[in-house]
């Protein structure tokens, strides 16, 4: 174990938003699971691209257009390298949701039919649930769920039993749950699915910002994530796919840039990754996201994980000391991602979030786009405090103090 001094990051000064004051109070941002704040390096890279290198890509022959092309493809290379992926099999989308829809449509819809099953889990975000519901309904396939146990974890035994039925074609699951914080064993699930000739899609929206991710080592067939949670801009998501699968798939969206040639009645598709990037892609956003992954690489993802792991453990321990607070997800001592969802007896999560907000403490309240999971947990909603690289121990102190103050308002 590295010492606290070695593993703790102190990077708040890199993020201009923390200079803001809310009624004189500093910003205590505990909602990075929804979207992360942006470091100066990202803001400047975006601005510099728009100010100095802006042109459309893949069509211009003038020098400025060549600069834009180079910036865009360099961004793709750096983003792919960050997650251990191949650039040609790294597709830019609008967000993780679109990346998952791309797979559900272009892979799922063409290959699923009656007698086939898609296996997802009870902890999925609606983004990795509703697309499969739709595709299964359209294709007459069955949608089945892996259950979440009392620790907020999946059972590999249940996975094996499901796969043994022989009808599972696709296994789709979150790398890190956005509600429970559970870190799922991606490599093990992917290996078992492959042995059963099912493809895997991993929703990595919560994982990529907080831990080292090497998609080739994990062995999943598709891996989706989003830029804005990884200290990058909104408007850009990423899909990594196994090249032979992507090659065999039809496009998701069609239009400009994704074609090789178009005649009045027929079109042939462009090569990867362009086949899946119809229309003008998020160019400036790609440049911004590349700056984001460069920033995170500079910190070191092992260190980011260690920093956030320590803070999460601290937060879990401090929340446990507050009477009436119940945390959901893996209990203390088990691996978990950098968030804690919790309920407070006698207070609705919305009221918790409102009262914390007055103290400058930003948490999310609600079902976190995971209504089926909420039903499994037997709660209507939770409050969720999620961490980013810029959080410090004082943020946990502020959370606990604001919570106690809020309970006082409610006469608890």
């Amino acid at each position: 174990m590295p010492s606290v001094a070695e593993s703790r990051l102190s990077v708040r000064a890199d993020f201009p938003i923390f200079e803001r004051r809310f009624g004189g109070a500093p910003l205590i941002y505990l909602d990075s699971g929804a979207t992360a704040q942006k470091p100066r390096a990202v803001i400047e890279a975006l601005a510099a691209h728009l100010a100095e290198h802006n042109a459309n890509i893949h069509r211009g022959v003038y020098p400025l257009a060549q600069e834009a092309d180079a910036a865009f493809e360099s961004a793709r290379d750096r983003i792919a390298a960050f997650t251990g992926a191949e650039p040609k099999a790294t597709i830019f989308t609008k967000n993780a949701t679109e990346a998952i829809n791309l797979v559900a449509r272009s892979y799922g819809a063409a290959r699923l039919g009656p007698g086939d099953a898609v296996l997802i889990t009870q902890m999925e975000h609606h983004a990795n649930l509703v697309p499969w519901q739709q595709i299964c309904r359209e294709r007459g396939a069955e949608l089945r769920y892996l259950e979440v146990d009392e620790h907020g974890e999946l059972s590999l035994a249940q996975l094996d039993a499901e796969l043994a039925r022989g009808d599972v074609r696709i296994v789709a699951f979150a790398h890190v749950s956005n509600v429970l914080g559970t870190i799922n064993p991606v490599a093990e699930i992917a290996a078992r699915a492959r042995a059963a000739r099912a493809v895997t899609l991993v929703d990595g929206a919560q994982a990529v910002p907080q831990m080292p991710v090497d998609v080739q080592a994990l062995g999943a067939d598709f891996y989706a994530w989003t830029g804005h949670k990884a200290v990058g801009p909104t408007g850009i998501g990423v899909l990594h796919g196994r090249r032979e699968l992507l090659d065999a798939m039809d496009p998701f969206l069609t239009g400009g840039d994704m074609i090789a040639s178009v005649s009045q009645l027929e079109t042939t598709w462009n090569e990867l990754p362009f086949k899946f990037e119809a229309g003008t892609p998020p160019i400036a956003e790609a440049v911004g996201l590349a700056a984001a992954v460069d920033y995170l690489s500079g910190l070191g993802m092992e260190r980011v994980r260690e920093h956030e792991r320590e803070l999460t453990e601290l937060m879990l321990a401090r929340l446990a000391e507050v009477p009436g607070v119940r945390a959901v997800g893996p209990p203390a001592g088990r691996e978990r991602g950098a968030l804690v969802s919790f309920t407070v007896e006698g207070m609705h999560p919305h009221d918790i979030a409102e009262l914390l907000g007055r103290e400058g403490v930003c948490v999310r309240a609600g079902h976190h786009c995971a209504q089926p999971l909420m039903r499994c947990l037997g709660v209507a909603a939770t409050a969720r405090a999620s961490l980013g690289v810029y959080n410090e121990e004082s943020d946990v102190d502020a959370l606990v103090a604001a919570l106690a103050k809020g309970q006082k308002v409610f006469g608890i």
Partner: protein
Amino acid sequence: MDDLYRDYILEHYKRPRNFGELEPHDLEALEHNPLCGDELGVHIRVDGDHIEEIRFHGHGCAISQAAASIASEELKGMKLEEVGELDADWMIELLGIPVSATRRKCALLNLKVVRGAVTGDNGWPT
């Protein structure tokens, strides 16, 4: 004293009036707040042209539960045609607290449900 969480709001939240189910009932509706997944249902017994008895059920935040509780006392005895005329301002004024844009749906969910049960129009009150 807290501006939003006034004593009477918390009192209605902790001990809501007319909470529960009503059997038999003539009208009913159930709605969700898509923001938070909260659920609010209403049962209404009609006598001629007015609400004779009203009960609401479900779960929600202090604002939505207090709104339902406070409104239920006003709605009892109200003519059905008057219920159809009730608007967002009626509910907000009745609550008597400054409701921010983000909590507006919490405050109005109850009226949406009641109007839906009475008139069949389940749009958000304006």
